């Protein structure tokens, strides 16, 4: 049975303000992908706190994001996140941020184009409002400017 993270999070963070989970009951906004992914420009974003070279780490309640060059290699990437066990992501970024794998898929023609840069943020932010009002619109603007057609979000 898939793990129920809502009760476990409540328990784990029981000494903090109770988190207000997003509840969206309306039909979500919908844009169909009108051509194959092999002909589409795809951008990837991780919430796992991935950093490129000497980019500054994330802070508590940090709705900032990082731009990660699409050709970044394992030894140029590090991880800062308090909300999951990061040891495997630190050893191999592809566990939470499959950048090398996406480059390979682009090279073989499985995706039309991998957008440059890729994006990373630190998902352990209590304020959903900050994510909704600050982070998400900024990322959306970047994606529109870059004519990204499909957006691949990978959680930690």
């Amino acid at each position, binding site marked *: 049975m898939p793990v129920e*993270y809502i009760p476990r999070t409540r328990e784990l963070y029981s000494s903090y303000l109770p988190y207000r989970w997003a509840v*969206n009951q309306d039909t979500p906004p919908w844009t169909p992908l009108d051509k194959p992914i092999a002909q589409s420009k795809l951008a990837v974003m991780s919430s796992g706190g991935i950093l490129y070279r000497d980019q500054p780490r994330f802070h508590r309640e940090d709705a900032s994001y990082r731009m990660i060059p699409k050709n970044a290699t394992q030894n140029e990437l590090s991880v800062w996140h308090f909300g999951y066990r990061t040891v495997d992501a630190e050893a191999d970024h592809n566990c939470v941020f499959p950048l090398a794998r996406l480059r390979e*898929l682009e090279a073989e023609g499985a995706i039309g184009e991998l957008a440059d840069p890729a994006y990373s943020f630190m998902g352990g932010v209590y304020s959903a409002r900050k994510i909704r009002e600050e982070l998400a619109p900024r990322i959306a603007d970047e994606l529109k400017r870059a004519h990204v057609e499909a957006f691949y979000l990978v959680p930690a």
Partner: protein
Amino acid sequence: MTSALDITRSVNPPRAVFVNFPLGHQTGKPHQPDLQRQIVRDALRRFETIGKPGTIVELPYVWDAHDRQWEETDYTGNFLPPRPPQEDADLIEEERRARFASSNIK
């Protein structure tokens, strides 16, 4: 993608793909590029096959056929590593940034 099915059901995004792996491993295990590539391929295919908004597809990957212990302990009790005291955290951060500042990696 989603690593937490109950959270994502509540968020109700346009489309999502779920892999039932421990947190921090949504796109695979370290140093297993074939598994990672397969998961990513399977996830990306759903851009083309999901037709109904709000659909969450669960991919049939199993973390460990012989051991489901992780499902009992993921995100419980002492699951998260203790946070280092602030001075140590700052030192770790300084060292990380110095490593890249002084290196010749292009």
